[in-house]
């Protein structure tokens, strides 16, 4: 084998190796940017969440006549708390970065979340220890939440209001 061919092959191999690495990075990159466009993985902190909710409240109002506009805590330590609903999801739990931080001994750090979809709110349990209940039924998957039906988390009850 001529020396030249081997040298070319040797460096060609290294270049191909790096091409492979960068192709893999390229494939991964699309995933990363898909995540970045859509916002954050974790729920926004309370302060940030509140401002985005106010901005987003208007389009929701236009869409539905009797859509839910408020989340009200009806029982538990936070009873009386109201959260204005926007387009952003609401996370509920003891974790500091939850949208609604509840201090309930029976709640998990990330307990449940409320997700809007086409004007309808869905409640989803986030693998909590003690479960989330919609009225008397345990929430096992994303479940639509009608107005006025209590979501129970530990000793806390929440309701959607128009």
């Amino acid at each position, binding site marked *: *084998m001529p020396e030249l*061919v*081997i*040298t070319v*092959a*040797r*460096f*060609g*191999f*290294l270049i*191909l*190796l*790096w*091409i*492979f*690495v960068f*192709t*893999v*990075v390229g*494939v*991964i990159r699309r*995933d990363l940017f*898909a*995540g970045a*466009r*859509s*916002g954050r*993985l974790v729920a926004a902190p309370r302060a940030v969440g509140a401002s985005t909710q106010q901005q987003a409240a208007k389009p929701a109002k236009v869409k*539905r006549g*009797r859509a839910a506009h408020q989340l009200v805590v009806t029982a538990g330590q936070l009873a009386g708390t109201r959260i204005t609903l926007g387009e952003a*999801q609401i996370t509920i739990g003891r974790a500091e970065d939850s949208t609604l931080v509840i201090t309930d001994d029976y709640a*998990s*750090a990330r307990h449940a979340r409320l*997700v*809007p*979809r*086409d*004007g*309808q709110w*869905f409640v*989803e349990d*986030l*693998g909590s*220890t*003690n*479960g989330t*209940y*919609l009225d*008397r*039924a*345990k*929430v*096992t*998957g*994303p*479940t*639509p*939440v*009608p*107005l006025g039906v209590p979501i129970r988390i530990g000793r806390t009850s929440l309701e959607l209001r128009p």
Partner: protein
Amino acid sequence: MTAAAHPVVSPVTTGERPGVRLARSRRNAELSLLVLAMVLVAAYGAIVEANLLDTVTRDFWMPAAALGLVFLGMHLVIRWLAPFADPALLPAVALLNGIGVGFLRRLDLGKAAPADRETLAIFAGTGGRQLAWTLAAVVLAAGLLVLMRDHRAVSRYAYTLGLAGIVLVMIPAVLPGRFSEINGAKLWIRVGGFSIQPGEFAKLALLVFFAYYLVRKREVLSLASRRILGIDFPRGRDLGPVLGVWMISLLVLVFEKDLGTSLLYFGMFVVTLYIATERVSWLLIGLVLFFGGAYLAYVLGGTVGGPFANFYTRAEIWLDPFAEPYDRGYQLVQGLLGLGSGGLFGSGPGAGEPLEIPEVQNDFIFAGIGEEIGLFGLTALLVVYLLIVERGLRAGLAVRDSFGKLVAGGLAFTLGLQVFVIVGGISKLIPLTGQTTPFLSAGGSSLMANWLLIAVLLRISDAARRPVAQGGGPAGRPGGGPPEQLHGAPTEVIRP
């Protein structure tokens, strides 16, 4: 009741957010990356033959084709069973595995008499055995994907796996030396001409147990804690089982003189604890304990000897390998010389002298490969490892259930730590501890265990990226289904 008025649409709750186009499975990207990886493996084989035989035989592509066929099978299984799994994992692992097989075959060619080189069968020698092991390992990984349709189902067998893990770790320690000892380390089960290294599999089993237990007790661990010196320590009875398992495996490993694996278990344990509790204090405690323990072992080894003498010797070699370059430091010195003579671009595959390094097919494979592909190529391989670990952690971040998070995070970290420990060891960054290089080193146990690890990561990343609207995804039944009743729900009362 407004619910009835609207059509019930399941929200797209991917690990990211609604509206994200993650629904694409990216399987075609995986296939093309796989083809690229196999082209690289074939090119490696061709250059090796050009350098060693001075000609390229007509069959140079055979090992790459055999590997490619197996990986293609794995790709089809993923297409069928885990269509949303991460597209980067399989090609990255395939490349490392292929380069490993190619390098081992290169060693066989180097050892063979020049006359026999051209006719070396593809299943002959260490490289051929590694090729056969790869086939077995990939079949095993595919089998795991078939059996484990939902990673959360594994948590049902968590205690069984924990027990199995301890037993696996203990067997070689209990067995008499002639059944378990190779090169002074008792970590094998040898039956006939066949030897397996149960510690590699125990790693997986123990991690599943840690993850399950920590998920169950996470609330209690972070709620009921005692504050000492500004750091929250969980109560002993909550942490007991995990600590027990960890202590047993650690003691056994020290008894088996396998420091690398005990370091690996320690790191795995600390990091799972950190992921579960989200407390940085665990990392600090872990690091302090580790460095303190290592220094203590060094001092004890220097003065008392006994079980710590081994560690002391290794630390001495690490501090000055050139003190006894033909004796204790021989292996490390040869490895360093190999890396050094490789330089930036290496001597070219097949043109180096990797056979000068003892155990080059095993612990020192990275030094052997490094001599021939240089810093440039070695960095590429390290980046491939980094990408695998990153994808694993990413799957852990994106998956919705805590058990999956812990398992994926723990497995990815363990893989990364293992690479760090062995590459750090051969490049004299840290004292050398015997460890296999995942997917590269010769050896069936390591290969199988690491492929199983990849199968678990694939399964979890599939769960993480699968849109719920697809149905049957591990995020739960879409839109409800018959809800469970209150009286059937589990409760756990926390008493401080």
